[in-house]
């Protein structure tokens, strides 16, 4: 549907487009980190694209890959009705230096979306005017949507009451509910990768 957009971007940035695909009809471009801001600025301002809305910005963590994170944006043109997904791979395998240019000067929605992405995945947006945590509290350590953040780790701001015989303190851990047949993406502890054959 928006295949011509891919062509337009390839034409304007021949070196920056690393790959493209159209899985399930969603046209996707993978661009080089250095061109991240420029490609978005082009898509926003060009008369043939007119991407006036940054619909979504998020990131996905792939601990086995290098660069480790994929920052994903979804753009929409209200006037022309087409959509495009852009992706960029950033970050070292340790997740220490994960940096990408901010889009806050292009769309106001990037402000909170980038703050959320920073909060949840620790991607630093260079040039963001107000990059601080948004959903979690400032004292929080780590970034919960990273795959190496244990899902059952707790960081209460106020310690739990010390009461005897409390066996269950939320969250209840991997054994809660069905412990079998689950695959866990946590690298924490023993992963529940037992197949249904071993279930008992």
């Amino acid at each position: 549907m928006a295949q011509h957009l891919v062509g337009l971007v390839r034409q304007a940035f021949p070196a920056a487009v690393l790959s493209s695909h159209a899985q399930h009809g969603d046209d996707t471009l993978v661009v080089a980190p250095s061109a991240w801001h420029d490609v978005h600025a082009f898509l926003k301002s060009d008369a043939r694209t007119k991407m006036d809305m940054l619909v979504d910005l998020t990131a996905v963590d792939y601990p086995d890959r290098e660069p480790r994170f994929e920052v994903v944006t979804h753009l929409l043109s209200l006037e022309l009705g087409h959509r495009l997904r852009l992706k960029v791979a950033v970050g070292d395998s340790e997740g220490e230096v994960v940096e990408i240019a901010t889009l806050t000067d292009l769309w106001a929605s990037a402000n909170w979306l980038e703050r959320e992405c920073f909060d949840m995945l620790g991607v630093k947006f260079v040039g963001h005017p107000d990059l601080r945590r948004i959903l979690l509290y400032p004292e929080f350590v780590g970034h919960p949507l990273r795959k190496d953040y244990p899902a059952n780790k707790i960081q209460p701001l106020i310690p739990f009451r010390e009461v005897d015989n409390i066996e269950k303190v939320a969250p209840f851990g991997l054994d809660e509910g069905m412990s079998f047949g689950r695959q866990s993406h946590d690298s924490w502890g023993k992963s529940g990768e037992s197949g249904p054959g071993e279930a008992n």
Partner: protein
Amino acid sequence: MEPLDLELEATEIELPVEPMLVNVGPSHPAMHGTVRCVMELSGESIEHVDVQVGFLHRGFEKMCERGTWSQVFPYVDRCNYVSPMLNNVGFAMACEKMLGIEVPVRCQYYRMILGELARMSDHLTCAGAMAMELGAFTPFLWMVKARDLIWDIMEEETGARLTHSFGRVGGMAKPPTDGFKEHVRAVVPQVLSILSECERLLLGNRIFLDRLEGVGLISAEDAISLGWTGPCLRAAGVPYDVRKAHPYLKYGEVEFDVPVGTNSDCLDRFLIRFDEMKQSARIIEQSVERLADQGPINVDDPRVILPEKHEVYSTIEATIQHFKIVMEGLKLPAGEVYSYTEGGNGELGFYLVSDGSGTPYRVRIRPPCFLVTAGLERIITGQMIADVVPCFGSLNMIGGECDR
């Protein structure tokens, strides 16, 4: 205390000039939702404001990565908890887009009817709560009464009034009940009559109108740049509705209009929800006509749909199929998808990444509320402190969806 000098001109009285910090929230009777506004006031007008969200963050996106795809449904229920059916359908459609399946026509109309009913209950809650926060308690009670009529249908269909978990990948949990059509046909006119009563009660009220008119203005360009969608964007004059712009289910085949505002103030955002409820009623009316009485509700696809119970108990094939789907979870092909529907507050998007196993690799919920709430700072800066309440109410921030 010094005696008041009556000779003094009003302009000669020196008021303190240092700004005052006022903290509203996170739990405040005038805020329907847990949000905190740290405001810097000069007199009564707001100079700067810092809107802080996240008090209802429960880590849904992380929790989704631990179960199966079907186990995500209860989480999306609790995102926008005043219209859970729209979230259910939105997530189911994202999974179906990835699997490349389309649900039967009967199910599509069923989803539309339930979805539009949910949209009405969403808008009723928003409009009612907004009126209540401005002191009009009666309309709130009336609208909650109307919402209860809708929830009675939901209860009859799904067994739950609020968090239904009724959507399934490839269909719905149950086909419509026998009395569904009659029930809907009986309830919708009642809701509409309650709406017109509320309209007469509120829209002739000077105090109510004065608090809303010309308050919380935003330009269409700003609204688009902020990523606003749904009623708030349409109140700014942009006729973007996912149901019209990118029709899904059978929205392309029913007649309805997209109401658009002109002034982009709180009153427009309030009125547009009334108009949308009337349009929802139109959609429901047409969909009920076309909803077939017989026919399958789920796709005929053993990869995703659980077999019939009597087969599970009697044949080994169905037992194994049931076991595989429940224990391993249904398998979505590896890849990524972005699927979007019109939720109660705007474009509800799901960006799913699957690695081909039965467990989601990444479930990103694109919450319309989050971006709408991001615009709160812009619309209340420069306004009076009393305007915060109608502005916040008109945006319809749903804590569960905003914070997830």
